[in-house]
């Protein structure tokens, strides 16, 4: 049985198309139409006036990380090293210490993320068994004057609130 063959007609064989100059003028007419419309009325440009108008961030967006806490303010992280082991860019550095609040055995005494190394893949969030690390802060623009400031520590990670409600965050991607 022969395969189904669909013959597609090749375009560009007519004389005006081969002359090229006619098509050039047609193209120039189109681009000039855009130019003229925008010159007369620049309110309809397809741009966001960025620093003043911030883009809308969805709950699925992977922004800067944060560490979540229990209702009483104690940190959810149990220093299991899952995220650090899973991290492809090795930007997470955890130091574990003894936990005394009866929730678990360990807690991090140091939790540093080098944001210059991080590739924002989100594997740490997926690896976390305790839902202790999330990337839902909505922070997407990170600028500092030196490298040291790009190393965020435990306090800053725990202090940053999430940008979305718990409900919206749970529904992300569903």
């Amino acid at each position, binding site marked *: 049985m022969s395969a189904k063959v669909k013959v597609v007609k090749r375009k560009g064989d007519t004389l005006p198309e081969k002359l090229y100059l006619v098509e050039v003028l047609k*193209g*120039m007419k189109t681009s000039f139409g855009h*130019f003229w419309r925008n010159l007369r009325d620049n*309110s309809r440009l397809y741009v966001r006036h960025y620093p003043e108008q911030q883009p809308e961030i969805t709950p699925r967006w992977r922004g800067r990380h944060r560490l979540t806490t229990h209702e009483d303010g104690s940190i959810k992280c149990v220093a299991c090293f899952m995220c650090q082991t899973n991290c492809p860019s090795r930007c997470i550095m955890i130091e574990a210490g003894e936990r005394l609040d009866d929730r678990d055995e360990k807690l991090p005494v140091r939790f540093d993320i080098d944001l210059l190394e991080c590739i924002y893949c989100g594997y740490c969030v997926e690896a976390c068994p305790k839902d202790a690390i999330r990337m839902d802060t909505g922070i997407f623009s990170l600028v500092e004057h030196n490298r040291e400031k790009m190393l965020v520590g435990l306090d800053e990670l725990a202090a940053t609130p999430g940008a979305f409600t718990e409900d919206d965050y749970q529904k992300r991607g569903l």
Partner: protein
Amino acid sequence: MSNVDILLVILRVSFGAFVPLCFIAVLVWMERRGAGFFQDRSGPNRANIFGFRAAGLVQNLADAAKLIFKEDVVPGHIKHKFYFIFAPAIVFFTAVASFAVVPFADTLVIGDKSYVMQAIPTDVGILWFLALAGFAVYGIILAGWASTNKYGMLGGLRAAAQVISYEIPMGLALVSLLAVYGTVNLSEMAQFQGQLLFGFIPMWGVILQPLGLIIFVVAAFAEANRTPFDLAEGESELVAGFHVEYSAMKFAVFFMGEYVAMFTSSAIIVTLFFGGYQIPWLNTETLVVYAKPVAVVLMLLLPVLMYYFAGWIRKSNVSHYDRPNDPRRREAAVYIKILWGVVAIMELILLAILLSPSGGVATRIFVAELQIATFLLKTTLMCFVYVWVRWTLPRFRYDQLQKLGWQTLLPLSLLNIFITGAVVVAVS
């Protein structure tokens, strides 16, 4: 030499030297804002001095400051540092110098002396342009070779091959043009185009030589290394081509040279094909006779144009998002006041022309100023065509470029010479 002689020499040379340099800023601005509007975005519009953005022109100052203070790297592998530094200078110098022969107004007659309005009043004319435009590519080849970099080398070689291919159709298109005008002197060519064909059509090169115009414009685009013929710096395959190793001010000189070359070739196209400084139907003698009616028409026209321009500024120069006490509106108000001031000064000058005795020196100078304005307007429009083409057409492939040059433009220009020759012989 009298004082007037010296003054006019200074004026003409400074026009020839500084107008191309001033147009760099205008053209870079036109390219970037134009590109924005062609692609439905806004282009650079944030850089400002005390809130004044001058429609994005201030961005040029920011870029210039950045390029001047950047580290000027000469990579360690470069053996011939002299040639490496010399190459951008060649490109820039030839581009500026080739503008020197373009007439920007008709020969100015003051008393019993006449002054050719070119920076270099020479009869060489178009040959000077051809020589220097051909020489500009040496800078590109030298840059590519001195970079000791395979991308740079390939870019330089491509530029060389391209210029050789397109110099020929360009020269041949000029041959037929010279047969029509009967001179190589650009001033005489522009004067020739002040005549009328059949008594009512301006005898511009575009009417007499339409095919020549197409060939010349295509070749001029290739000579100026502009899209669709900018293979020498094709990003997709050569990174940046001949200027891949250049940084800071050395790169900026290449960049400025490119824009000066664009301005110069626009000026040459305007002079050869669009009547140069000639205002259609009003050649120099007619203008001198009718200077006062023209001044009256201008006096009436200027405020009307300014009124609509002010309305456009007021509409365009606003923030397109919620912003309390929008500073851009205040900015627009200041611009409009300044522009109305300029219009008022121009009206006063026109009034002075009206009150001065007709046919005198003042009238002659007024006519020269009108012609300079016309020339600059035409050249700016031609530069806009360069920008327009750049943001419309994709780049040619290398074999397509050579095929177009040798198999299409060369036979066409030869055909044009035969037809023109037959017509010129038949008419004379």
